[in-house]
């Protein structure tokens, strides 16, 4: 029901090719971690899976058929930035989910229904540690708090496919581990397919069932944007590979950002 099949995907912006020859199949319930150098097109790939942008060529199948070329409730997203609605307080941001889903032409649920939804929303706020910030606007929340709110909001939408663009980038290590636990918990609970972009290789290994590395394989020195990035490494994670410092070091070397020793520490936490 929520498989993702990508075949021969290519994405160009004008003359610049960002992605090329991307092939990947994710079964329902898989957790893909996407890593790769900055600017190599990971967010672009997510936007295509979301339906916010369309591929230049190639096939993207989500669920049973070709992807609908617009965002739908089937796919939830947590963006790198602008992740929550600035005109709503924390609790209102969560209430909005049900308002949009079943609020009818007013975009709002009323009465007993609203009371029930409010209880759910408050429980969710509690769960992400934002109960004290219930009535604050996002402008007065820290970056990490906004990100937690965004994750809570997206999860309340119960998407079959969850797309996460560096969701924990702005969080401090303690909260980050808590959010890892929360995400793992919800993922086992709902069994949605997750695609998560991250710069933290340790996080990629800790949470994912698969790690995908995006990188350029072809280079044209005269015209650097002639070729795009593709998936250069696809590692299925099981007990053994997850704990293997060899694989971790290999991926870290490919991405060339995180030092393997700090990454190892994250995986262990």
């Amino acid at each position, binding site marked *: 029901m929520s498989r993702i099949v990508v075949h021969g995907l290519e994405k160009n912006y004008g003359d610049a090719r960002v992605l090329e020859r991307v092939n990947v199949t994710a079964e329902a319930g898989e957790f893909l971690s996407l890593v790769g150098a900055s600017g190599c097109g990971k967010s672009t790939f997510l936007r295509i899976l979301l339906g916010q942008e369309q591929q230049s060529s190639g096939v993207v199948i989500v669920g049973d058929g070709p992807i609908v070329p617009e965002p*739908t*409730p089937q796919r939830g997203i947590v963006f790198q*930035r602008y992740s929550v609605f600035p005109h709503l307080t924390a609790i209102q941001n969560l209430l909005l989910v049900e308002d*949009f889903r079943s609020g009818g032409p*007013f*975009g709002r649920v009323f009465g007993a229904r609203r009371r029930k939804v409010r209880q759910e929303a408050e429980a969710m706020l509690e769960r992400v540690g934002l109960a004290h910030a219930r009535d604050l606007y996002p402008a007065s929340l820290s970056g990490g708090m906004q990100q937690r709110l965004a994750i809570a909001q997206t999860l309340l939408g119960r*998407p079959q496919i969850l797309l996460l663009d560096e969701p924990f980038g702005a969080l401090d290590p303690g909260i980050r581990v808590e959010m890892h636990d929360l995400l793992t918990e919800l993922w086992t609970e709902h069994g949605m397919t997750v695609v998560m972009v991250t710069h933290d290789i340790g996080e990629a290994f800790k949470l994912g069932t698969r790690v995908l590395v995006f990188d350029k394989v072809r280079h044209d020195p005269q015209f650097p944007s002639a070729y795009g990035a593709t998936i250069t490494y696809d590692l299925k994670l099981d007990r053994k590979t997850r704990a293997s410092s060899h694989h971790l070091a290999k991926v870290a070397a490919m991405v060339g950002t995180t030092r393997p020793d700090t990454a190892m520490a994250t995986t262990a936490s």
Partner: protein
Amino acid sequence: MLAKGMSARDEASATGGEGITRPSRPKPRVRLRMINTKVSRGGALFLGGLPFLFVAIAYLIASAQRLAVNPSDKLLPSPPQMWSAFLDLATVPDKRSGDLILWVDTYASLLRLFAGVGVATFAALSLGIAIGFIPRVRAFLLPFVTVVCVIPPLALLPILFIALGLGETAKITLIALGVAPVMVRDIANRVMELPSELVAKAQTLGGNSWTMILRLVLPQIMPRLITCVRLALGPAWLFLIAAEAIASTEGLGYRIFLVRRYLSMDVILPYVAWITLLAVITDWLLVRLSQAMSPWAHPVEAR
């Protein structure tokens, strides 16, 4: 490098310890860059009041000088003269019609102004959102609105008087036509500038075009709409007074142009001050309205 730094510090602490030659300390008050200096509340009040005071004093001196030369001079009347003329208009019924002229004028003008600006605001809201949010409407209307924006509204005035007669409709239409196109364009731009992430996110939560307008676009542009109205009120007063000057039987602009024939500066000046006061109050009310409607857009300033 390190050793040198340490020895220097040792020396300083040594001399300090003996308390003989303490190096003269820099003054604790730091000179900030001009752009970083803060103004206290009282200071702001004082500075803000200065230009008003300056103009008032300059007027008083000039007026006193002229009146000293010629006591029946009409050009720069003294404050008591203006006040009595203003009070007459506000409290003494007109001999011919029996009306209290100031209030009749004010009522007529404000009615026209708010009707015109109200129509324009409604157009800005509905057309602006439609143009900004729905690509098909944008393709259909944006070029037209862009062209209408550059027509000088006052050039339309004769057309409006010919087509709609000299009544209220023509005046209200002039105000609405004068300010609406710019407002529509501004709101449309604002809607187009909404982060596409927010629109995408709303769709993943199940919003459709209509509920997204209600729950996302409308609240997001509300502060801008109010700012738009505040900016539009300037031109709106201009069009109002122009229309009243040409064809009217009452109104603030009509009165000013009527008494101009008799060089009645003692009426014109208070009327201008009165219009200014009305405009300032309207603006203040709109700011309060924005704060009440969109508290998220007016974060509390840290003290």
